[in-house]
């Protein structure tokens, strides 16, 4: 088998051709042995057609797609990246504009967000509709969405 101890530091480009051939031959040998075993099983399970008519022929299609890759417009990357960053800053500013949020709050911190949403006096003082596995009030997206639904229901109820 083509087994290398430290593949990250190994000098692949200058590997001896004989080692490379031997390794690849061993790889092919064991792959074929494995294929024969798997093929037998697949025939037994009635999946031979799927293997030979669909999966095997599509391997070259996928390797071609993987090799080709997808071109990226660096200009667009900058443009969309800038748009997103500006949007993020604006959204963050909006959040800090709430009286319930202090300038020292770090809204990326779950602990801090728990204080802002649930525990700190003078803040939003809501109740978490769910908690984490460890028992802390949850600020995960599904919980916040549920909380939002409850608020919307309550607002609707009040007309």
């Amino acid at each position: 088998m083509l087994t290398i101890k430290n593949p990250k530091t190994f000098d692949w480009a200058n590997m001896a051709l004989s080692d490379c051939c031997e390794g690849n031959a061993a790889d092919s040998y064991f792959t074929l042995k494995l294929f024969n075993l798997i093929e037998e099983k697949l025939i037994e399970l009635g999946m031979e057609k799927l293997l030979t008519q669909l999966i095997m022929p599509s391997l070259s299609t996928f390797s071609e797609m993987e090799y080709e890759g997808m071109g990226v417009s660096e200009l667009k990357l900058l443009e969309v990246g800038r748009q997103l960053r500006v949007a993020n800053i604006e959204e963050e500013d909006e959040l800090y504009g709430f009286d319930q949020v202090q300038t020292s709050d770090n809204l990326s911190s779950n602990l801090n967000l728990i204080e802002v949403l649930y525990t700190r006096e003078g803040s939003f003082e809501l109740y978490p509709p769910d908690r984490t596995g460890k028992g802390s009030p949850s600020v995960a997206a599904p919980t916040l969405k549920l909380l939002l639904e409850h608020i919307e229901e309550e607002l609707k109820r009040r007309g």
Partner: protein
Amino acid sequence: MGKWDHRDDGKRISQSVLQGKTTEELRDSQRFIKSLLDLRKSQKLEKTYIVGTQKAIAYNETPKVFVDYRFDGTATGRLSCASYTAKKPMGVSFHTLPRDKENNIRSLFTAPKDYYFVTVDYSAMELRVLAHVAKDGQMQKAFLEGADLHTYTARLLFNKPKISKSERQIAKAVSFLIAYGGGAFNLAETTGISLGRAKKILNTYQNVYPAIFEYMEFVEKFIKKNEYAYSIFGRRRNLPDIKSKDFKVVNRAARQGLNFTIQSAASDILLCGLLGTQRRLKRESVDARPVATVHDSIELLCHKDHISKCLEIVYDELVNYPFMKEKFNIHFDVPLKIDAEVGHSFGDGIEIDFKDGKPQNLQMVREYMNEN
């Protein structure tokens, strides 16, 4: 922090706390949570796709991303696509690319000079597979008539000719829930209707599309007897959990089995379309090649002079599916339908109208090409 209740108790207390708030306080909380969720979403977009693509370009030393397609990435037999490993940041997963047009992430991926992206999407593929395998005459009729399935279903479900947006939404949710193996509880959760109403709607759905439920029953019985499910392509998924003593585990295995018969077939239909298309393009010397596949779609790069021929081939291979007929002898009871676009990038383009398998609005495409 142990004082916090969860699930039903938490929900109940949360709702009663809200009742004690002023309307202004509620509106503030609503705005805050909405903005917070929006911020998290766009921060994730930036981190995953902008930073991820920048890292990939730096790693690859060329403005390209490379992905790893995996046949064994999902239990359903669906193809998965990953960005290799953290140590080899060569790309970003196309399968999670958002469709959002506001921050059009898909527009980052562009075609080289003189080439265009041809993006072809199967329309309502899983529901077409469901109508076919379940042999449900009513659902098949909707597809054969070219009707919008969800409006058609809503009319039957609510027994009236004029349907509201939310009624169509409910009908759509029920159809997908059936395909994904959900029940009344999931329907109530996703559409915001009461559990009682969800149950009633599901009962009516059963009267509207009885063969779908007979098929579900058949699949469940088959799995219980054989401990596996199989698709029309012969692909199978072992489901030993069906023999569990825990009824929740048994139900999950039954759901997974039903979903497998539909999702894996849909995925293999796309694979047949992809192979057929690639072979025809090569055989007929069309300068076009597939560069990606994302869920029910295929993305091709096509030279500007070959767009018309490429579209004709793609239409034929995906809608008339000669490859699948020849190799698997599968003939669908319902027509397959595609939506196609031609554009400079993955994220924008001109929608193509087809008539008798031929693209109709190529003049618009030419104008688009000249403008861009």
